[in-house]
């Protein structure tokens, strides 16, 4: 089992990990030759929100080498806390111009190498950050975090949730604005009802003993249907499809505004909502984070 790569996009990996950390303490990473899958199974998060995402290797890594007996795939599990600490250190060392200007601890010509090693019997991920200080001295920082290699049995237990054919797909408004609004709704009630129709209307409504509140977006984009959708009978365009979810759960998904501003949501009526957060542009996407937010059963209808 061998794994070695340079991390070319530390900032993106950092953002992905931060949005995962909002959901769970640990996550499963499935490394294959072409793609990296970040998985947070439902039992890991308190709200039942699951993440099943895949990111193209080239989006995050450079000089990527993987070998294993299981079709060159490695499944491992790690603690997001320690992973984030390392990434933060790496992020500040590589010196980001984009976020907070250049910070003092930044190294020049820095690169970050990630290796799968073994320390005794404990598998570890070793991060080596190398670069030059302002005085052109070479500097190298190494972080090691424990990882757990998943057995084939455990791998098989991890299954993407089965969902019925979604009733509707809709492109969400800007995730950051949506997030801020939803966080304000969380002061009013615990659950929110999400509804959408094929005219591009999206509604979020909350009810409490004091107030009923509905926020409506109009003329959002409905993605063009794919081939297998066309066999289905098109419902009347005004018909609303709804699911009630916990606001806490929805907010967990919305932490992904860090990664990208655009997402498509689909609603499986009274079952769940699924959100696809695209990394990069919609047409040449470098990957997609898929969030499953389970629906709640409501008493009155």
């Amino acid at each position, binding site marked *: 089992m061998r794994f070695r790569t340079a991390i070319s996009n530390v900032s993106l990996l950092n953002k992905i990990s931060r949005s995962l950390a*909002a959901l769970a303490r640990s996550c499963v990473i499935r490394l294959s030759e072409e793609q990296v899958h970040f998985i947070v199974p439902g039992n890991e998060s308190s709200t039942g929100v699951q993440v099943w995402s895949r990111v193209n290797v080239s989006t995050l890594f450079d000089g990527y080498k993987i070998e294993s007996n299981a079709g060159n795939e490695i499944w491992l599990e790690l603690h997001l806390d320690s992973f984030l600490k390392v990434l933060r250190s790496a992020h500040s060392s590589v010196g980001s111009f984009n976020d907070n200007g250049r910070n003092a601890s930044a190294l020049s010509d820095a690169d970050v190498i990630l290796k799968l090693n073994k320390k005794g019997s404990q598998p570890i991920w070793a991060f080596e950050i190398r670069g030059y200080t302002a005085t052109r001295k070479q500097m190298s920082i190494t972080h090691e975090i424990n990882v757990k290699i998943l057995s084939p049995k455990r791998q098989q237990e991890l299954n993407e949730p089965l969902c019925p054919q979604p009733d509707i797909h809709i492109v969400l*408004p800007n995730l*950051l604005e949506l*997030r*801020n*609004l939803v*966080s*304000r*709704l*969380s*002061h*009013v009630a615990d659950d929110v009802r999400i509804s959408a129709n094929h005219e591009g209307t999206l509604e979020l409504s909350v009810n*409490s*003993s*004091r*107030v*009923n*509140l*509905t*926020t*409506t*977006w*109009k003329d959002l984009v409905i993605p063009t249907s794919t081939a297998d959708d066309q066999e289905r009978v098109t419902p009347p365009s005004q018909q609303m499809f709804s699911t009630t979810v916990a606001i*806490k759960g929805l*907010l967990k998904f919305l*932490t992904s505004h860090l990664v990208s501003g655009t997402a498509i949501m689909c609603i499986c009526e009274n079952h769940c909502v699924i959100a696809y957060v695209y990394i990069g542009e919609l047409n040449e996407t470098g990957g997609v984070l898929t969030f499953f937010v389970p629906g709640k059963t409501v008493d009155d209808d």
Partner: protein
Amino acid sequence: MANSTLPVLIAETNDVRPFARLLRGIGLKHNAVMEIYEAGFAVTVEEVRTLCAIAWIPTSLFTSFTYNPPSTPATFELSLDALLQCLNIFGNAGSSSVGSISSSAGGGGGRTKRRWAGDGESGGMGGDHEADEVDQRRGGRGGEKRTGMRMEWKGLGYDLSILLSDDARGPTTTCNLKTLEPEELMNAQFDPDQTALYLIMKSEWFRDALLDLPPSSTRITLLATPPRESIPPQQPDATISSNGRHRHRAEVGQFSIQAEGDFGMTELDYPNDKEVMDKFECEKRVSFSYHSSHFALLHRALHQSVKICLQIEHDGFLCVQIMMPLGEGVPVGGHSGILEFKMHALEEED
């Protein structure tokens, strides 16, 4: 009953902030009683028999205000918390967008801080802190964002419905606030014939004083001496200038706020000088004490206000009126919102 089909109230504005600011000033309880008049709203909050706070909200805060008087008074109770949350749904009417209010208002002294309506949205959710940061950043950059509102009340038994939007292309929010039959209000009236002290001064002076009061004090004493009071005996250990100051203040009259805390006594004096007092009417010496936690509530109400008018009846009943800055096009004699706080004096301590 010819009007029975028309809604009792339709009020519209393109910026909810002045409206929200007034409501937040009296946000000391979860529920409030709202009365609608020809001249605007009166929103009242009462702490059982001890404190009464009223926000007088004139029609000039709205771009249009249509009131069709129903046969019964247009009065109902609603959740003030929920109303403030609705107005801030797009983040343009929160406490942060009008400058941060220091939490010293009610806190300090080990007293647990109670969360009242509109106390800002800190709390629970993991990522809230970030959201606030983002809000502030957005507020800094795009100060032009305003939330517009259309409020409608059909009449007795109907919800108060509010339509909000911050951008023509953006989302809209409709809120239906449940209305309840109002609780009976005490709302003791201030009797102008019984006035023992009447003064008007800048809010700033008064707010600074409230900030300086020791947080551990429980009683706050207001004391006023009329002009040409007998000169106090010279303190042997006082400097010449402070003796001179005392003499001057006795000459012109003064107002002072005193509070005793764990670490001593704080006294703030305001001489009846032109640059301090806009108006100062005091016949004879008055001194009354009030509950400091009630006084602390004034702090938030004073935020962004311009002037206060403080009146005390002969029996100690206090009425503080806080005036908000005048908006554009307010007619002479009109106002852009007044917050009124009324409270009874505490019994004299032995």
